[in-house]
């Protein structure tokens, strides 16, 4: 057990983390590209057209994984923030800050693909559907986090502010989701919400799960890249950065 603890402790030191992530990234990229190709092939080619929505339903292979990721990243951002505040783990603070733009990107992607999917089905670009509305609010939560981080000069202070905001947001997400669902079914009546996934034959479902995993691996890659950049920025006048820069 203490090997894991030692390794986690080692990861805490920026130079070790930088080298370790450098070695890890190529492998992750290979895995990610492989999963994406498999998922896209499964989703775009193999999966039979949906009897009702025909080929337009294939948009779910981007929309649904992106929506899952937007929530997943917000939760992991808030947890990383909490670890950063409570145990003053610098790396957790950096994970919290660097996850925000990636999460915002996935949320925006989920919104746009949601409306692109809605247009052919219901003729309008925007539907006040419960899921899409929650996604829209989540996007504003992300914008709040990013705007707050940019507004504070001292980066250590900004990291603590963002962590507090992310935690407050995390507590509010279920409340917002429940009240939007309630608000939505109230005005429209309890029809099946428009964005329920069509009944999934396995050949449709597998590519969806593969895409979801591919997005998670992608998130890990983008996170590591952003963390490396943030580390260089923060430790720009420390010895290990100078050596590293001097070499390359």
């Amino acid at each position, binding site marked *: 057990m203490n090997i894991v603890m030692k390794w986690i402790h080692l990861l805490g030191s920026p130079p070790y983390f930088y080298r370790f992530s450098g070695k890890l990234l190529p492998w992750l990229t290979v895995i990610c590209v492989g999963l994406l190709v498999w998922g896209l092939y499964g989703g775009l080619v193999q999966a039979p057209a949906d009897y009702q929505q025909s080929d337009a339903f294939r948009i779910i292979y981007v929309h649904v994984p992106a929506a899952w990721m937007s929530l997943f990243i917000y939760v992991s951002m808030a947890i990383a923030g909490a670890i950063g505040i409570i145990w*003053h783990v610098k790396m957790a603070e950096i994970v919290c800050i660097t996850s925000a733009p990636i999460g915002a990107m996935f949320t925006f992607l989920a919104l746009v693909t949601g409306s692109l999917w809605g247009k052919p089905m219901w003729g309008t670009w925007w539907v006040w559907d419960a899921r899409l509305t929650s996604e829209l609010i989540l996007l504003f939560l992300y914008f709040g986090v990013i705007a707050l981080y940019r507004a504070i*000069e*001292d980066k*250590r202070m900004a990291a603590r502010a963002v962590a507090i905001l992310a935690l407050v947001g995390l507590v509010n997400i279920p409340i917002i989701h429940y009240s939007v669902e309630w608000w939505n079914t109230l005005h429209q009546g309890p029809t099946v919400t428009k964005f329920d996934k069509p009944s999934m034959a396995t050949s449709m479902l597998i590519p969806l799960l593969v895409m979801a995993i591919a997005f998670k691996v992608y998130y890990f890659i983008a996170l590591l890249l952003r963390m490396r950049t943030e580390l260089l920025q923060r430790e*720009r*006048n420390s010895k290990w950065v100078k050596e590293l820069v001097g070499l390359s």
Partner: protein
Amino acid sequence: MSDIVSLETRNLECIRDDRVLFSQLNFSVKPHQALILEGDNGCGKTSLLRILCGIRLPDQGQVMWNGLSIQESISEYYQDMVYVGHLDGVKGDLSVAENLRMCTALGSRSGMSIEDALNKVSLSGYEDVRAQVLSAGQRRRVALASLLLKRCSLWILDEPFTALDRTSRGVFENIMSRHLNQGGMIILTSHHSINLTDSSVYVINLSA
């Protein structure tokens, strides 16, 4: 006062926008001692004071109060410490007495009445004066009067003598000396020379 009463720092370090203000800073202050922090502007005197108060987190190292890190024993530490920063914390809309009553309600009380405290800082009779009509020097003395109203052994003062005239400075030096004689501790920054009668005064120059 128990004998282990002391404020101690262990290799304290502070970085402000990529500049290391100080590092590996170790010192301790015991009862009857005063510590004067000197150094030119921007060398981190105020940052150090704010770290000692626990307002700001140090980048490295720890501040210990009675052998315990202040993060763990924050409420005991604040029970015994009072900080007067650049800002006096005096509200213009309230009268002097109302301001002082609020300050004492926040922390532990020394039992001294507001009138006595104001007499000691030669502001007697100013109880009901609205604080916004006071001069900067008078407002500073109101902030210093709140020190007397609190039962705190450790005083942390950020340039207490700004805006004070010569006589007030003399008055406050006596107050500080008496506090030290009674076993109090003082950490302060100042550009003026300070003579505290017969108490052990140490000086640390941050920009040395």
